[in-house]
């Protein structure tokens, strides 16, 4: 079998257990798989970033959010699967910007695992949408690709207006810009628990913008599951 990322050949049967119980084989070679850094150990209870022993939880960033009258409590928690190391940056570029959709297969197992661990079937899955313009440009929505990996249905309850590419703005600018999200035709959200799906959690503004729209429509709790914690 050839590795999904480096295309070198490798033996995908790593253990007897795998063979006996017919577990899915890994689509990556051990070297590529080993280059990803999973987030584990102590986390910020709010944003899910890895913390060392000495740091308080929630982290300073999250305290700032919580103290904000407008934004405190909009998002209950975020959890992420991977650390944003150099390797992850390369892989995300290839996947999202070069458009190599197939790479999403490599994320399935850890992503589903994180979903079961931190959320679960009572949460409604809503992927963060792209604007129609950006969707056309990329050909696919990476958040939707991730949501499709989960063994539960996802709901297209949000839509997005076209705005500047976020990576070009500062935190302040991003916070102050108008909320790009709005509701589509969706059932009443009153009392629903919703988990947003996205690729990267950086400052948390994107998921909070989206969460706010859902909360204003009556959602009881909104959390987020992202592939990477930057």
């Amino acid at each position, binding site marked *: 079998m*050839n590795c999904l990322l480096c295309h070198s050949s490798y033996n995908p049967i790593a253990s007897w257990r795998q063979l006996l119980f017919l577990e899915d084989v890994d689509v990556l070679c051990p070297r590529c798989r080993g280059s990803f850094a999973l987030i584990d150990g102590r986390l910020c209870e709010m944003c899910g970033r890895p913390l060392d022993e000495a740091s308080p939880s929630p982290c300073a960033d999250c305290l700032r959010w919580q103290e904000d009258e407008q934004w405190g409590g909009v998002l209950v928690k975020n959890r992420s699967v991977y650390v944003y190391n150099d390797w992850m940056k390369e892989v995300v570029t290839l996947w999202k910007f070069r458009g190599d*959709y197939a790479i999403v297969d490599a994320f399935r197992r850890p992503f589903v695992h994180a979903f079961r661990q931190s959320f679960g079937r009572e949460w409604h899955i809503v992927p963060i949408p792209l604007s129609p313009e950006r969707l056309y440009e990329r050909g*696919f929505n990476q958040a939707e690709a991730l949501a499709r990996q989960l063994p539960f249905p996802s709901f297209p309850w949000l839509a997005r207006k076209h705005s500047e590419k976020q990576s070009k703005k500062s935190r302040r600018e991003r916070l102050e810009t108008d909320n790009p999200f709005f509701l589509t035709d969706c059932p009443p959200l009153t009392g629903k628990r919703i988990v947003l799906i996205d690729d990267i959690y950086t400052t948390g503004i994107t998921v909070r913008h989206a969460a706010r729209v859902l909360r204003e429509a009556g959602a009881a709790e909104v959390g987020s599951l992202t592939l990477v914690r930057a």
Partner: protein
Amino acid sequence: MSVSSPLIASLYGQRIPREQLPFSHADIETALRVGSLHEQSGLIKTPRGWRCVRCGNDERSWFASFPCARCGTNCCYCRKCLMMGRISSCTRLVHVTMSLPSERYAVPLAWNGTLSAAQEEAAMEVKQAVLNRRELLVWAVCGAGKTEILFPAIAAALEEGWRVCLATPRIDVVRELAPRFRQAFPRVPLAVWYGGSEERGQIAPLVLSTTHQLLRAYRVFDVMIIDEVDAFPYSVEPMLEYAVSQARKEQSSLIYLTATPSRAWQLDVQCGKRQAAVIPARYHGHPLPVPSFEWCGNWRKRLERGRLPENVLAWVLRRLEQRKQAFLFVPHIDELEAVTRLLQRVDARIVGVHAEAPARAEYVQAFRDGSVPLLVTTTILERGVTVPNIDVAVLGAEDRIFTESALVQIAGRVGRSAAFPDGDVRFFHHGKTTEMVRAHRHIVRMNETAQKRGLLHR
């Protein structure tokens, strides 16, 4: 739609996905209707699966599919040439159908260096091949001065109003050659194509390109020169061979440059199936340093115990003592790290560099500046890096990675400058291989041929 239309002028010679065109839908539609622009599918259905029109890939494992937001279906795409923008089954590739003439340049060559006798002979052969639109292999030893022998041929082509492209697998070479070509052809517009360069895709009378970027070009070059045909990735990638075939005009010359043609090509040359201009001597007229073999036992086992073979260590110590700079080649990254660690105990200035090392360029520069006495490296440095007055050793020359051509290239690092035309080339091994013997024979034969043709001054 006339030839002078900006759309035609800017797209000529390229074949690119329609969505990448910086023109309005209406303009493109008009050009398509009058036939000056041709549109085709990016992927073609084959009995076995798909073929990518841009890169020629038709291996199933190199295709994947995704729910495409553009066409609303499950769309197939090529993973092989993804770095140039995704080609999927709903992508339309467009190219200009007519041929735009290039300007003629009278006496374009401003280079006034002189060619050695060996270079002169080969230069005339290349020029003839270009004018007759033939294929020719230039088999020139490392340090023969390959670039200069192209100048008369390129000049002749530019006088005819032809477009010339020199493609090489390595980006460093493209960057290095650009100023030399600008100097040699000061009045001729030159475009440099590599990933990230502003000019990539731009058609000029003279184009320097990485083999990858050639995928942009379509039926535009009258003269195609491929540097280091044997080098990774050209020889292993049928994609790049396809790119060359698409980028050149049907009526065009094709010149291959190499110091180490593959076994198959060497045989073709010997039995006259392939035309070749052989340059067996370096420009400075001294013979190539011939490698010597030295058995070093089971060096891997020794490394595991934290020691180097005695004779290898002695060789290194001798260079340090003589203050002669040296390269030590090892087969793989793991061994590179182990060997570097051991040698750093002897001299802390010694460094190890491999292909993925982030500070690679800095270390190589430090070596050039003389602050690093010995550089441990994997085969990535076998080509290109030229430092005067060095010795070279290979540890584990029996490894599969050291093919005839890799070993000839490694030996070719030594004695490059006229001031220091000699040096030591040592292959430490744990069992002689055919490849080692072939490399040795290759170098000896070249020296003999040079001697016979009177190209060595001694």
